[in-house]
């Protein structure tokens, strides 16, 4: 899709306003300076560790905490407006469904500001409930809903008045893995159906990858980089203590397309199968260190995308083990938790077997 002509929604905190940001604690300003554009109808995900200022940024955009700088929505400045007049929806991390009102009443509250007739209101509420698969739950109190249902009810409430931008704070962090995954797909579906511009923040890289049209990386109150999701995942800067681990980029020899969605390439003297993605031939494959699985013994199972090598170095930082391997003359990085590394009793210079997870290989 070509975005170049799309109108740009611009959210800007000028870097030079750093000292003017007034938060509750002046000695510790959380947002150091952020400047970014959000494209019309896109879903932009900001990812970053806890304490990066993600929630603070959203609270500023919503107008809930004082801030300096400019915020433009559809080209109009909203930074001087109170939250109730910004027309920016907000899905809070703790949802904040009003516990004393049914799901329908919760949605109705969001429609108070629109001057529309009662039947239009009911129409909007029921179509939003339907969109979020909540039709049968409209009369329930939030306390009688499951975690996933609450999440959808809060999303419906945030969207029912058609805000110009929707902010999402760690939208699925409180849910179990399966529910979260399902709801991510649901959010993508609702996003594509409504076309609401969305700005989400999360500490979960996988979530960011799943959700985002584009992705930004936030650390220490600054926006480090912003761009296409694959681009960021594969070419992310790997600053010391940086949030993103640099991806492995492995030179390979393109052999052929197998016609079943797989590409056969030659890497480090062996065969490698890579998912077909776009169909263009490539001579490099990229894989994130998290998706390189290693073991001191040959792993069982089908002998696909296996390699054998030698450990060069093991570094431990922040509960994670970073393992550098040599496979032939190729350098490969693997990443796991310190506990996992200890359980495998990895040692430098010892032989190692590994798997490059097929689904997470990208030709580039």
């Amino acid at each position, binding site marked *: 899709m070509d975005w170049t002509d799309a109108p740009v929604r611009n959210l800007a905190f000028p870097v030079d306003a750093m000292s003017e940001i007034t938060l509750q604690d002046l000695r510790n300003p959380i947002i150091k300076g952020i400047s970014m554009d959000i494209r019309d109808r896109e879903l932009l995900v900001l990812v970053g560790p806890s304490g990066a200022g993600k929630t603070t940024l959203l609270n500023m955009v*919503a107008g*809930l905490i004082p801030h300096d700088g400019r915020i433009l929505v559809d080209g109009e400045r909203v930074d001087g407006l109170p*939250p109730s007049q910004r027309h920016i929806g*907000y899905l809070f991390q703790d949802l904040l469904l*009003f516990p*004393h009102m049914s799901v329908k009443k919760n949605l109705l509250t969001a429609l108070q500001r629109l001057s529309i007739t009662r039947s239009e209101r009911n129409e909007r509420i029921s179509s939003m409930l339907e969109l979020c698969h909540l039709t049968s739950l409209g009369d329930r109190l939030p306390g009688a809903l499951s975690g996933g249902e609450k999440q959808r009810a809060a999303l419906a409430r945030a969207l029912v008045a058609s805000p110009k931008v929707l902010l999402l704070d760690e939208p699925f962090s409180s849910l179990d893995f399966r529910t979260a995954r399902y709801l991510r797909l649901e959010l993508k579906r609702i996003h594509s159906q409504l076309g609401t511009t969305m700005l989400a923040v999360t500490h979960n890289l996988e979530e960011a990858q799943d959700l985002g049209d584009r992705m930004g990386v936030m650390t220490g109150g600054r926006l480090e980089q912003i761009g296409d999701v694959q681009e960021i995942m594969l070419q992310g800067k790997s600053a010391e203590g940086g949030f993103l681990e640099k991806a492995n980029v492995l030179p390979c020899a393109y052999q052929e397309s197998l016609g079943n969605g797989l590409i056969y390439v030659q890497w480090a003297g062996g065969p490698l199968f890579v998912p077909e993605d776009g169909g263009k031939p490539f001579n490099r494959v990229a894989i994130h260190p998290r998706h390189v699985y290693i073991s001191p013994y040959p792993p069982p199972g089908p002998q696909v995308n296996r390699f054998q090598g030698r450990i060069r170095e093991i570094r431990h930082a922040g509960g994670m083990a970073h393992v550098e391997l040599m496979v032939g003359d190729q350098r490969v990085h693997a990443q796991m938790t310190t506990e996992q590394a200890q359980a495998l009793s990895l040692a430098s210079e010892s032989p190692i077997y590994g798997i490059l997870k097929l689904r997470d290989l990208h030709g580039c």
Partner: protein
Amino acid sequence: MNRVFLLPLVVLFLFTAGVLSALFFRLSPGEIIAALGSDETRFALRLSLMTSIAATFLALILGVPTGYVLARTDFPGKAILDTFLDLPLVITPLIAGIGLLFLFGQNMLGARLGEWGIHILFTPWGAVLAQTFVASPIVMRSSRAAFERVGPRYEWAAATLGLRPSQIFFRISLPLARQGIMAGTILGWTRAMGEFGATLMVAGAIRFKTETLPIAVYLNISSGDLGTALSCAWVLMATGFAMLLALRWIGQTPRSETLPSR
């Protein structure tokens, strides 16, 4: 547990039971029932209910918004103001009554109010004034605690949904804090019903005019009419007991809501 701890419990129980039975068995049930139906008891009950309901209403109007402001804002000197507003809780009612008497007396506010035809001292309005003075800080404290428990985040959510501050207060904050506010209202009302010292100073003890239940007990004990005094005492205790039960019931009402974790 050491059995020694049971002794104070037994003493406390006997203490309370002793006081209650002394009040109860002093007169025969027939005498009490006769006195309950007397004009004086009925007048005192009616006046007590009217003044205490008016006072509780005023205490709500003053206490709930004050509690909200104190729960949601921070400003220099807040702790001092806070302590100051709690003073009526620790001032002896008799002394508070003297203060009210001076404040609304002819030398201060009384003259001006009198020009407007408002007479507070030694009228039932004096009783309302005295009761409001003691009930307001109770309502204010409970409301404040209730608003603090709910926290500001639901209000944030309401603001992003486009509600104006007044809508947020009446549709979100107030309903969510209702349990604590109701508990405070009951406590304040109980306090207003039983108010004696300040009422005596401000409204005086005038038969069939400013004779609330506690004043009626005082007047009839002084004049030796034990029947009316005790029947008024019983009515007062019964309402107090009913309110204790109501408090329990509110405390046990299952709450469908879950408050946000942060």
